[in-house]
């Protein structure tokens, strides 16, 4: 086979997939505008994604914060900067690790869940049946999930930020000899609103990407149980890649470099 043709075919295939995904995302994000808006579906999705993700996101955050505190302490001790632990830890969490870890955990939970659910509906003809019953699957299935994930993820990240900083606090106070109140005061004086909002903006974008990937791969799945399994896997992998890639782009925009 001609290697140039092979590279070309792969590139075209990739671009076509991204194009199809973008069209899907826009249709899904705006289908509800012309009504009806399915409130019950939206609330169900919001509870499932927002509320039910909290335990796993909280656990991730507390351990991440705790481990981060040890690493920062150990690293900054090399140039006698241990006292900056609260500031470095808090800015790392609200800007980067809170949104990142929370999004990755939600991707593992919800992106796969959406892909599996919609995939099962697709292969059992339920999505086609919905169209024949005069209900647009984009309005009933896709829009509520995309909106709910995009709106809920910033709240999840806010919780993750608080719990992450708390995890760091525990280690700092009980293992590293920091004074609890000073630790909090240092963070309060150092951290700016921009640090937190940049993380929350990231969270909204991550939520959008997670739900688009989950819905896209589920909606397009073909070929029985194996197809649904493949859709689930693709959704999680694509969400994770999209989260990390968009994270870099957004970070470079926020820091202006």
């Amino acid at each position, binding site marked *: 086979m001609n290697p140039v043709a092979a590279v070309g075919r792969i590139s075209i295939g990739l671009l076509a997939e991204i194009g199809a995904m973008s069209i899907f995302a826009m249709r899904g994000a705006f289908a509800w505008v012309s009504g*009806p808006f*399915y409130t019950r579906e939206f609330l169900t999705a919001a509870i499932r994604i927002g509320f039910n993700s909290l335990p796993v996101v909280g656990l991730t955050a507390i351990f991440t914060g705790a481990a981060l505190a040890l690493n920062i302490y150990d690293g900054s001790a090399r140039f006698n900067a241990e006292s900056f632990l609260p500031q470095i830890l808090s800015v790392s969490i609200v800007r980067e690790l809170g949104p990142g870890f929370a999004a990755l955990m939600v991707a593992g939970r919800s992106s796969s869940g959406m892909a599996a659910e919609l995939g099962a*509906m697709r292969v*059992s*003809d*339920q999505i*086609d*049946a*919905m*169209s*024949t*019953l*005069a*209900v647009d699957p984009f309005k*009933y299935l896709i829009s509520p999930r995309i909106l709910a994930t995009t709106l809920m993820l910033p709240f999840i990240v806010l919780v993750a930020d608080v719990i992450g900083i708390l995890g760091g606090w525990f280690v700092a106070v009980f293992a590293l000899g920091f004074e609890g109140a000073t630790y909090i005061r240092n963070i309060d004086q150092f951290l700016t609103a921009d640090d937190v909002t940049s993380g929350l903006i990231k969270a909204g974008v991550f939520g959008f990407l997670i739900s688009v990937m989950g819905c896209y791969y589920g909606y397009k799945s073909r070929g029985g149980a194996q197809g649904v399994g493949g859709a689930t896997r693709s959704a999680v992998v694509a969400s994770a890649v999209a989260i990390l890639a968009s994270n870099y782009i957004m970070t470079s925009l926020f820091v202006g470099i």
Partner: protein
Amino acid sequence: MTTATPKISVRGLKKSFGRKEVLRGVDLDVDEGASLVVIGGSGTGKSVLLKCLLGLMAPDAGEIFIGGVNILKLSATERQKRTREIGMLFQGSALFDSLKVWENIGFRLIYGEGKSGHTARERAADCLALVGLPKEVGDLAPSELSGGMQKRVALARAIAANPKILFFDEPTTGLDPITADVINRLIIERVKALGATAISITHDMSSARRIADEIAMLHEGRIVWRGAAGKIDNSGNPYVDQFVNGRAEGPIKMALRAV
């Protein structure tokens, strides 16, 4: 054949998947109030034909007239308006497993037409009665029902909006002969009561004989025979003879790939 405009008319319908030509120019007319059964082996494109008619799949070429209007020439919204007047019974029933039976039957009323849950519930009870089920079934989940009961519920859902056109995709596949007969009888009854035009696809010959006014045979993407249901045994067509008598030898070779 009457001179009136057929309710459904298909001309030169073509659809390929990759290099596989599934429909190679299907021509078909169904008169208003008639029941046509399309027979054919697995993988001959029967489901694809219905999906094209329902607007769930775009054909590569050809024309589809519903009530004299070429729906492929209409805008997406206008086309949807027409294809949504078609009731469809899916092969696997395709009930929404996250919803209760009555919500399934009332799905169109609640989510498509914005009616209240109360109205939908009453309509669901009526439709359940029409398919011979007590209204208590409405409170069950689809997964709690047997295959035959699921088919009945799916039929109730398909007729809930009083459609003038009904499609049945393999309505008796996977059912025992007695349940299959119940479904056949319900289909005949409901189609008659609605005065609907019906297209069914099946490879169950006893079902085809019962529900059809006319039978058409789809083979390799074309209609190879069409005639009154009573003539199916004397069609003089080698494809039909082989299919009806279920012989392995004959002009029809097994399709290698599913569609």
